[in-house]
């Protein structure tokens, strides 16, 4: 028995040792990469880009691809990328970039807090900080610009579109995203206001499906089973709209253009725009992941000594209507 246990311990130690070796190897590779980046500099603008994990969502994947396509050597950039969904790892990476003396630091922060000191360090080192996609709770003077989506405006655009449909009565199933996320707050806010202001706007139900298609399906199924009438589904992203539509199809309720129920989604996934094009959905609101062009313009201006006129730059975002969407729109805006 005892020897068995000893054997186990030895095995355990071996495992730990090999893990340690692996870890060391990985860190050396990373450190090597950073050192390499510091060496080469041929008149290129050196940028350090800190982003969230590209696997997080279709939005993030499109965002990352856009950044990678813009910050290339052909466009005059020497870019290093770092990905993490954790704030502390991102901050450590920012510190690393500062030590390697990049010219610009581009950050899409995982969390809003804790960035003050590292941004101060960047400023002291003469590095320009540009925030993209997400804001940070830090003094405005610590960054040159922040390029973000106006989630509240996305909601407003969508709700105004719905109001323009001129229905006699709006009985809305409202499916929310993860409670407290910026997208949920912005997209919920506009609808809540409209419902409070108009007597003919009612929320049949308002529930969170946490971005999950299956939960959305269950919520809509529950309303159908209860026999409550409704004529609008306002889902805060495309996946949840898809789930809702699956429940409608199961109950043989028509939807989309000329259907009984108006379907609204967000995020302009390509497949969602195709649903719009086919007339099965009615509206899809854009959440623009393409920030690289804006950042490029700011950097090119800064290189000539022109400061951006505004601190917070909102991305241009559209809402697509099934009645007017074209195949080109699907190709161009679908992510």
């Amino acid at each position, binding site marked *: *028995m005892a020897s068995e246990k000893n054997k*186990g311990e030895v*095995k*355990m130690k071996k*495992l730990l040792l090999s893990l340690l070796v692996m870890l060391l190897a990985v860190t050396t590779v990373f450190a090597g990469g950073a050192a390499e980046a510091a060496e080469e500099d041929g008149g290129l603008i050196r940028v350090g880009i800190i982003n969230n*994990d*590209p*696997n*997080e*969502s*279709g939005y993030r*994947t499109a965002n990352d691809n856009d950044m990678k396509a813009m910050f290339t050597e052909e466009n005059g950039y020497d870019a290093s990328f770092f990905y993490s969904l954790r704030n502390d790892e991102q901050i450590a990476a920012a510190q690393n970039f500062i030590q390697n003396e990049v010219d610009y630091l581009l950050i899409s922060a995982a969390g809003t807090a804790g960035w003050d000191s590292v941004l101060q360090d960047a400023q002291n080192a003469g590095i320009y900080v540009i925030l993209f996609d997400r804001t940070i709770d830090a003094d405005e003077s610590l960054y040159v610009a922040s390029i973000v989506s106006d989630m509240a405006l996305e909601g407003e655009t969508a709700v105004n579109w719905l109001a323009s449909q001129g229905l006699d009565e709006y009985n809305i199933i409202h499916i*929310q995203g993860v*409670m407290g996320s910026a997208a949920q707050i912005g997209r919920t806010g506009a609808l809540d206001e409209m419902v409070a202001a108009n007597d003919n706007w009612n929320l049949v*139900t*308002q*529930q*969170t499906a*946490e*971005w*999950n*298609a*299956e939960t959305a*399906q*269950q*919520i809509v*199924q*529950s309303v*159908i*089973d*209860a*026999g409550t009438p409704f004529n609008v589904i306002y889902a805060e992203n495309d*996946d949840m709209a*898809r*789930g809702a539509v*699956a429940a*409608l*199809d*199961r*109950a*043989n*309720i*028509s939807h989309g253009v000329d259907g009984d129920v108006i379907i609204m989604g967000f995020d302009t*996934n390509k*497949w969602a725009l195709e649903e719009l094009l086919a007339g099965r959905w009615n509206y899809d609101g854009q959440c623009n992941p393409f920030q690289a062009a804006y950042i490029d313009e700011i950097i090119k201006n800064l290189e000539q000594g022109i400061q951006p006129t505004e601190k917070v730059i909102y991305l241009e975002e559209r809402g697509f209507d099934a009645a007017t969407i074209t195949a080109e729109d699907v190709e161009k805006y679908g992510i």
Partner: protein
Amino acid sequence: MKEIANKKSGLKTATQLMRKQIFIPIAALLILVLFNLIADPSFFQINYAKNSAGDPVLSGYLITILDNASELAILAIGMTLVTAASGGQDISVGAAIAISGSVVLRVLCGDNPRPEEMQASILTAFLVSCLVSMLFGAFNGTLVAYFNIQPMIATLILYTAGRSIAAWINNNRLPIISDPVFGYFGTFIPGIPIPTPIFIAAACMIIIALVLKFTTLGLYTQAVGINPNSAKLNGINPQLIKFITYVIMGLCVAVAGFIKVTRFSTINYSVVAADIEMDAILAVALGGNALSGGRFSMVSSILGAYVIQFLTTTLFKFNVSSSALPAYKAIVVIVLVIISAPTVREKLSKFWKRIQTSRIRKEAA
């Protein structure tokens, strides 16, 4: 005298029933049924109608519950075995479902995320995903059984990395399968009005029932869970048994993952089966199984899974506001878990016995 004897036997069955593990999930189910019956009897109504494709389908709250609890019930099978043998839980099942679902889609799609035709048969895709899931199960099992790592820590690795691995498998793209046949497994087979996942779950239950009846798996698992050393002295290899339970868990994950991807013929790596590991562990706990391993009741765990879905659907039905939903669920869960804890159950049944005997004594006097 006879009356007292009758009462005594009545008391005996009542206490026995209370002591039985299955009492808790059944009681929880009955409470939920009663609550819904009083609040709105239409909860139990089942409708028969055509869907938009013109096929007949059954719908209603009960069907929703049975349909949507399928994955959880299947996972509860694996989780019960893992818990019994290793005295710990596999927290990687949600991430593992993302992987197995991603494998199914990868095999069917090949390099093109939106194929006109499927590149392989659905059976092949399913079998490959079974193999991959069992490999990941074997990975967890090796860490737990042979390296003696705490199950929660061992499975934490896959829990953290799983969804990224799932995304890699498909090169970060979100494949969509347009062939309607693929969707039959997660929705309805034309002409059959009962959702297919219900059949799949039932098949899994029958298989595990047969396995537990005709093999020594159940016995060995419990023996290892109660005391690995004495099991070893009796000629059972505890490491192998623990390992096997994790491989079986992998198989359950593959089936659940297959249902998940066929529901919408696509996948979303970050949200598919989110937090399902917690519900699966909860199902085992609600079934009155000790989370520290040892004896288990498979039927109770599976019933526990249906209790969880029953609760979720009930909360949707009563339109509980989004922000309050987790709080309601938490309260119900706390109550259920406390009364289903073995120690509390023992005390309750003792308490019940005391009341009854004192009453009988009084009446006799």
